[in-house]
């Protein structure tokens, strides 16, 4: 175990590690400024549980209706040797009629061991070039994230003979009149980009995997699938850069004491026993970069939001930008009420005073 790994293990403590997955890797691009999140994800800390134990449970869960719907739709397009999917792929990839192979990689000879599935995936994908494969159901890929392997499981990989591999993602959000929720498509695009990286890694060839991934969604209000191509070159660029940045996790670790740990101290019933306040303090020693966007993206958001109270950032990026460099709302208010600004704050102070004067003139505020 390398010193870094040892250090990360200590951060995590006795809580079982959460491996990186497509979601957490994608998260690297959502708030790259956040050292807190970077450190915890690198160490495989269970942020959900940690947040709950410190008294700031994450504000999002998933409705089982959504989960059921998602699974049902994926199952439907994959039924009968992925008959529906094959029809769509034939049309969008121009598959030859002979290209109708379906390979189930969910298990290997009835065994679901990740390592085994990954090895088998590699064999079948590399063999595909000999024309023995078209659709690969739930292959298991692997990506090295800051020295730790993340196992990644795309919905499907399609191979065009004498052509390239395409990542296929099956989502249950609808494409209504050729338009889909741009945020959901964006999230899918980053996820697919992660798979593209992993697959290129596995095949050892950049050009073997196409930068256009394939999105399968229900059409309008029906259960009938439609496909769309999604160009993920932008996402690939961002991911590559962020992945190299967390390679530098040591620089982050160096900033913190060796004693620092997010251990939850689970009892035999697996319930955390560590005093919440102590844990929260440990968390607070690592810098976060909270923005309201975190509220829909990170399990720790409520904890960080509380910490950010009184900062202009807590009011949103727009406000923070409008207030120039002013960090705290209190400070902004004082300046607006005529407190003397520091040497490099005259302009914003001037504007704030003027703004206050206008409100005063119009609303009679003081």
């Amino acid at each position, binding site marked *: 175990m390398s010193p870094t790994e040892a250090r990360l293990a200590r951060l995590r403590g006795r809580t079982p590690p959460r491996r990186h997955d497509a979601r957490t890797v994608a998260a690297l691009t959502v708030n790259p400024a956040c050292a807190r999140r970077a450190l915890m994800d690198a160490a495989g800390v269970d942020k959900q549980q940690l947040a709950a134990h410190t008294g700031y449970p994450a504000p999002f869960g998933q409705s089982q209706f959504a989960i059921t719907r998602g699974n049902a739709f994926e199952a439907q397009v994959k039924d009968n040797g992925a008959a529906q999917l094959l029809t769509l792929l034939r049309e969008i990839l121009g598959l030859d009629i002979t290209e109708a192979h379906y390979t189930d990689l969910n298990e290997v000879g009835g065994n679901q061991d990740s390592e085994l599935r990954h090895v088998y995936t590699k064999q079948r994908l590399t063999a595909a070039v000999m024309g023995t494969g078209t659709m690969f159901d739930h292959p298991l890929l692997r990506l090295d994230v800051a020295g730790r392997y993340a196992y990644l499981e795309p919905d499907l990989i399609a191979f065009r003979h004498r052509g390239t591999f395409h990542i296929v993602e099956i989502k249950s959000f609808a494409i209504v009149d050729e338009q889909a929720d741009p945020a959901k498509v964006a999230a899918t695009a980053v996820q697919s980009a992660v798979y593209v990286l992993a697959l290129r890694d596995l095949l050892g060839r950049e050009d073997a995997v196409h930068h256009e991934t394939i999105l399968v969604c229900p059409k309008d209000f029906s259960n009938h699938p439609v496909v*769309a191509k999604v160009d993920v070159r932008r996402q690939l660029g961002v991911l590559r850069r962020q992945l190299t940045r967390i390679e530098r996790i040591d620089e982050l670790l160096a900033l913190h004491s060796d004693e620092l740990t997010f251990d939850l101290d689970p009892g035999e019933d697996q319930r955390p026993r560590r005093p919440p306040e102590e844990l929260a303090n440990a968390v607070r020693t690592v810098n976060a970069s909270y923005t309201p966007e975190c509220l829909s993206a990170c399990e720790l958001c409520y904890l960080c939001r509380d910490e950010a109270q009184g900062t202009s950032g807590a009011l949103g*990026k727009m406000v923070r930008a409008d207030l120039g*460099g002013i960090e705290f709302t209190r400070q902004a208010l004082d300046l607006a009420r005529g407190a003397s600004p520091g040497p490099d704050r005259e302009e*914003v102070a001037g504007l704030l005073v003027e703004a206050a004067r206008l409100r005063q003139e119009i609303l009679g505020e003081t």
Partner: protein
Amino acid sequence: MTRLASPAELARAAADAIMADLSRANRGVVVDSPPGAGKSTLVVRAAAELAAAGERIMVAGQTNEQVDDLVGRLAAQLPQLPVGRLGARGYAVPERVAQLSNVQAATNATDLAACPVVLGTAAKWATVTEETPWPWAIVDEAYQMRSDLLLRMAGQFEKALFVGDPGQLDPFSTVETERWLGLSWDPMSSAVAVLLNHNPQIPVHTLPVSWRLPATAAPVVSQSFYPFTGFTSATARSERQLTWNTHAFGTSAFDLALETAAEAGWALYELPHRHTLRTDAEAIRACAGLAARLLERGASTSSERSAEPLPVTPSRIAIGTAHRDQALAVKRVLAELGVHGVVADTANRLQGREFDVTIILHPLSGRRDATAFHLEVGRLCVLTSRHRHACIVVARAGIPELLDAHPSVDPVHLGVPAKFPDGWEANQSIMSHLANWRVPAP
């Protein structure tokens, strides 16, 4: 052994190919023109040759200034060709156009029936109602033209030559709606995009040589903003010189920046890291101050254009910003410093213009977060590609860090091609180049 083609030869070959396509085009031709690649020259040549072939040509520009420039060049080069200038009511013909004997101006196209070539703004053309369409149209700055305007004027012509710079700012709208995203005729997207969506057979040419950008700038701008096509500079490094008429006593940071720029064609005048309002007084003062100091030192340029050195006059200097209030603030400080005639304006209004030296306030300077606006690739491209000799970038330290910390969560719309190059990557590439020419401010 074959000698490598000279830039001039490359350019001529490209132009010839375009003319050849024009002669056999059944719909039209699109020409992508990187900064200063001789777009207007091409327009004039095309107009002349088509006119010579007995065709009537309507020429559409985007602003009256652009159109007047074209009229000037066309009428001057072809003194015997009657040139029509179609203007909206209230349009006053500027002196430089009025004095040309072969130019005739009118607000009504029928009054210009005698002119084989008639020029006007696209907006004006959109109001013209004539039964018989023109055989040919030349649409200038077609990438800055919105497709809904093209829709309104396209009925006027049968074939068209579209020229423009794909790297500059996209057209914008004052309303925000996703209603038309993914439609092949999205009215908010550029005229060229929509044209090509519906006419994929139309040939697209690229002008390979920039006459404006010096050898120091062409490669940087080319690989940052035109990664797929690319272009070269028409001039060798030795052909463009920026020299000082006086020597600086000691070396202030201003002088250092100016000399670096004269030497390398680039300079990054870097202020200490700080989050600021966008009208960052210190940065604004730096922009104006550099311009003032440049004039005070007295600079002259020598280039392929003239044998003996020419002075860099105020009008040959531009200060470029992202926001209007920044440009206003710069103007104010310039006035305080008693500097007159230096152009200070936003990227949008500097499009298509050319200067000897540009001083630009980096859109991301002093910002806490980058927004889509500040990352827009066209904005940085315009700002860094207006100069013939040198470009000085004024910015606060910390932009690379800002870029690295930038969350990439832009929505993705189905059927809308991803924009390349991406603003985030283009910014990274420019910053990493500028890092070599850093001059820290005191």
